[in-house]
């Protein structure tokens, strides 16, 4: 399923990160964010807050950090990415479309009957490795991929993006023990630290801090970054492993609902969006469109 022995030699040689310039990455992020909101408002359903919070993380990964080839999504040497917080899938779909895995028009099929763009990622959509979204499941599956890479002498890395509330799942700590014990420095876990979970602020509901201290004591190399600063994300994610012989943890401090002023840091936007046809929906799209247009003008890309 992931092996393409007939892959052309020129494709094999191509796998390098894009190294996109920052202004263009900002524009990509703005377009991704706008498409996220178009999907969610278009179908009246979706997890908006955590999708908007991780847009820059995905933009940095797909446009600057990861070795990948949208024309060969199963390239054996590609870096693997798992969206463990799969409920935020609209941001992944929009990023994959932006990166050229499939046409942006495919985003219109979000939530349609038999679409590959459902409420959580599934196999079949180019760029999605396998189905994810039950919280806590991404790290172990990613570890399996990382172990296989080490066994086979492969150089690719495995990036797993988890939610901050997600690390309340016990299995995350089983995998934290394993990754450190087996010195899996090809394994990178990114926490989208937007501070909110489905019902409340994480620190009010079930405290997870100090995250860095916990993972350090488990034997991980940890860093924290502004999760909306593309330069900083690019720089830190391009420096993995943070320490040889250790798994890397990046805590990306983000704002849930980022980009739409009335949605930011609002708990209830976890699994909803502005209802279609409402003033909120119109304002959300306006704000994101305005931001996209500003950045397009700045980068000289026109509209």
């Amino acid at each position, binding site marked *: 399923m992931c092996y393409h022995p007939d892959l052309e030699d020129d494709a094999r040689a191509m796998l390098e990160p894009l190294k996109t310039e920052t202004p263009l990455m900002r524009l990509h992020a703005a377009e991704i964010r706008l498409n996220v909101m178009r999907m969610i408002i278009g179908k009246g359903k979706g997890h908006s807050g955590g999708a908007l919070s991780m847009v820059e993380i995905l933009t940095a990964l797909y446009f600057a950090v990861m070795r990948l080839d949208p024309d060969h999504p199963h390239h054996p040497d590609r870096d693997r990415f798992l969206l463990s917080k799969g409920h935020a899938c609209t941001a992944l779909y929009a990023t994959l479309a932006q990166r050229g895995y499939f046409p942006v028009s495919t985003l219109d099929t979000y939530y349609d009957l038999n679409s590959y763009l459902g409420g959580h990622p599934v*196999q079949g959509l180019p760029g999605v490795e396998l189905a994810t979204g039950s919280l806590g499941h991404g790290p172990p599956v990613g570890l*399996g*991929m990382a172990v296989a890479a080490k066994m086979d002498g492969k150089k690719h890395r495995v990036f797993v993006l988890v939610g901050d509330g997600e690390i309340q799942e016990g299995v995350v700590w089983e995998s934290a023990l*394993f990754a450190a014990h087996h010195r899996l420095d090809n394994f990178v876990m990114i926490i989208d630290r937007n501070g909110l979970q489905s019902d409340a602020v994480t620190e009010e509901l079930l405290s997870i801090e100090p995250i860095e201290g916990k993972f350090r004591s488990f034997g991980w190399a940890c860093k924290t970054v502004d999760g909306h600063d593309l330069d900083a994300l690019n720089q830190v994610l391009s420096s993995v492993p943070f320490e040889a012989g250790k798994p890397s943890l990046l805590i990306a401090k983000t704002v849930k609902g980022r980009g739409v002023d009335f949605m930011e840091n609002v708990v209830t936007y976890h699994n909803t969006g502005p209802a279609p046809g409402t003033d909120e929906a119109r304002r959300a799209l306006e704000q994101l469109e305005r931001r996209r247009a500003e950045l397009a003008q700045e980068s000289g890309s026109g509209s």
Partner: protein
Amino acid sequence: MAAEWSTFNPREEFGKVVVGLGRERDNCMVLAADLARTCHVLGFRDACPDNFLNVGICEQNMVGMAAGLAFEGKVPIVTSIAPFIYMRACEQVRTDVCYNNLHVLFVPILSGLSGAPLGSTHYGTEDLAVMRSFPNMKVLQPSNALQIEKAILEAYDAEGPVYIRLGSGQEPDVPSQPEGPMIGRAIHLREGAEVSILATGYMVHKALEAADRLAREGISAGVWDHPSIKPIDAPALRAALSGSSAAVKLIVTLEEHNLCGGFASAVAEQLAKTGSPVPLEMMAIPDLFVGVGSREDLLQLHHLDSESIARRIIVRIETP
């Protein structure tokens, strides 16, 4: 257990088979969760150390990792005590492995009451119900040493996830040789005109013993071994309905599993489709938590010894 059966040890057979597989197949891996000694896979560890992972007491992480390894082309054989796979890591089995249709072999030991007298924490009495409800999953239950080897080798060369239910201790090595594939096929062990006893796993020898007892009472009972719980052998079920001549008076299912959702349910689902007029007697562990005792004592307590089975059949066919 009657004295005349030669016996085999399921864990030892499993251990032997995986060593052979590991030596021949580069991608074969064995994953254990601190029960490698108990599951008899230390031989594999010694023969193929690079392909062996003892993940610690972390079954959920083990099964999730198995999914990732399988995605990358490895063939993980995951072993533990049954409840720690089908319950502790249940969601990983279903969502990571089955949903993604990944080729992982689950080979639990201590299924049924073979872990007796450890208590229900360690009995595997609901696994057939749970595992056969997952799309893509195949569920096998070998009844002798030969079938263990055949099941594992066939599952290894199949696609998608396979659950191979093993017992523990010394078990009767019943003469039940599959001809051709095991997956989806039952084995007709004994012709019979009046009753068809369909059994699986450890209970196959009880079915044969019960059929002997019934013969002494002048009742002709046929016996079928069903090592493939899912897919079930539907043609064999149709054949069992007709016996050696006319329609049988009774179909009996026999399993070391909770009455809910296991082999009996799988048979009943098929028979319901055919509109079978033949009564079905489901012999299984009642829907309760079985207590402490030896395996044989517990089976007898719940009327699953061969004498009780024969007696229940006589009562049932004499009082329709």
